[in-house]
């Protein structure tokens, strides 16, 4: 372990202190607002997913409430699965009063690196009740096979 020189964390001026505080608050609020940022330089958000492996396929499930099928784009390039789209919300008059806003609106993107043994010709996707389920088949040789044990 390296010995580090102790430096006084006290900021040089008051504004710097507030800047630091604001950063802390932003991070805390981001944490409570569901989807995480997809990357440091990526301003879009990423939906929460589950990836399940069964004997002959992979199932990717993503929560996408309020996303229309037309605004959703699922692509597979090699073994990279990308889910991207826009979550929209209609705005009516200017007179509206917002009491609470926990939901988010905007574009999102999530990429998943799937194992090599996927069969990209066997992919199906279904969007139901705001949940996207993508089923990706495995290649024949990657499927789990049951071997009968012969008793002599």
């Amino acid at each position, binding site marked *: 372990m390296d010995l580090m020189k102790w430096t006084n964390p006290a900021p040089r001026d008051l504004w710097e202190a507030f800047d630091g505080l604001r950063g802390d608050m932003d991070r805390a609020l981001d944490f409570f607002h569901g989807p995480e940022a997809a990357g440091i330089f990526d301003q879009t958000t990423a939906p*929460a*997913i*589950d990836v399940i*492996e069964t004997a002959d396929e992979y*199932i990717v499930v993503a929560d*996408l*409430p*309020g996303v229309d099928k037309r605004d959703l784009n699922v692509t597979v390039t090699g073994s990279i699965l990308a889910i991207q789209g826009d979550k929209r919300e209609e705005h009516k008059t200017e007179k*509206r009063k917002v009491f609470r806003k926990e939901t988010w609106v905007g574009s999102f993107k999530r990429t*998943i690196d799937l194992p090599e043994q996927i069969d990209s010709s066997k992919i199906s996707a279904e969007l139901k009740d705001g949940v996207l389920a993508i089923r990706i088949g495995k290649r024949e040789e990657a499927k789990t096979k049951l071997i009968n044990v012969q008793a002599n």
Partner: protein
Amino acid sequence: MDQNKELTERRTIVPYCSIVEDEGLVTVKIEMPGVSKDALEVKVEGNELAVFGERRAENPVGTYLVRERRAASFRKTFTIDDTIARDKIDASLVDGILTLKLHVTEAAKPRRIEIG
């Protein structure tokens, strides 16, 4: 009371929601991905508007490689006062978002008084 006890016994999380008022119409949107229409319960009891959405386990047998989604049902309660018309609450569930439309009673709306 029994109903409340039954609801709290199930594992629930509070869904994200937004509440917007626009000219006497209060629109409440609640995000409930994975809840179908028949697994949804919207109730008004006294001053309480309760929403319960059951998320049924849809997953087949397998191993989870990634698990980020919250596997629980949704429950949210709101307190509503007398300015909300109880008999005119509309609910619709589209793409995992429950939209409740609450109407402000005529008596509670701001009135413009003409000066004669």
